């Protein structure tokens, strides 16, 4: 059970089948949800976009479905929250380990974090989710926020 992840993922910040042409567009869609729901300050979106450009968060999973986990410094965050998007068509994010390599990404977790010691469990559950090709494939196929919550529960 990914309890900490479920407690942090706001159903209002789950956006399925996003049509976007850039990593920045995806980040801004999810950051706007987190801001509207009171998780982050207005400065958050720009900060995540800037960080993604300098220190990208694309994670290569060895197949066609890769994941990105954009986030930024705690002072842009009001309370911990998590937003999730699945993308209608993969969008290119840069590889965390090698920014020159572009990865087609299908699932994006935008994380609002302010206390790593309290959020470690949630972070570990995200890593666990990322490490399950079955869950990632099912997330991409999910039709509703309830589907997503069911998969992660």
């Amino acid at each position, binding site marked *: 059970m990914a309890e900490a992840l479920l407690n942090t993922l706001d159903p209002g910040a789950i956006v399925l089948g996003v049509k976007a042409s850039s990593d920045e567009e995806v980040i801004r869609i999810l950051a706007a949800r987190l801001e509207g729901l009171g998780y982050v300050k207005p400065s958050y979106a720009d900060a995540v976009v800037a960080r993604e450009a300098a220190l990208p968060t694309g994670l290569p999973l060895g197949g066609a479905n890769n994941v990105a986990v954009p986030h*930024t410094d705690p002072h842009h965050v009001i309370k911990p929250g998590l937003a999730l998007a699945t993308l209608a068509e993969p969008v290119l994010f840069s590889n*965390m380990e090698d920014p020159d390599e572009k990865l087609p990404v299908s699932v994006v977790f935008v994380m609002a*974090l302010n206390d790593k010691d309290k959020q470690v469990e949630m*972070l*570990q559950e995200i*890593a666990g989710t990322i490490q399950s090709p079955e869950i990632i494939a099912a997330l991409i196929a999910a039709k509703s926020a309830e589907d997503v919550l069911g998969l992660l529960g």
Partner: protein
Amino acid sequence: MAKQKTVLFACGTGIATSTVVAHAVEEALKDRGIRINTRQCKATEVAGQIDDVDLVVSTTQLPKDLGKPVITTLAFLTGIGKADALDKIEAALRD
């Protein structure tokens, strides 16, 4: 018994990915009978944090010639190549 070694975990913000990696490595090494001290920082802060560490494990590219062994890996986030990465870390700590 050898002195417990210190591993510095670095990532972009020093909060998310390095937290996951530090916990994963600490637990996995414990299973191999090795205890480590862990510390975390941003990739940009590594140069100023490196004096008393034995090894740096990073998820992102670091400046070259830091004077300490550096292992850059996403294995503890993606699950791909985890055993391999652990072997490298263990070897670096046994030196």
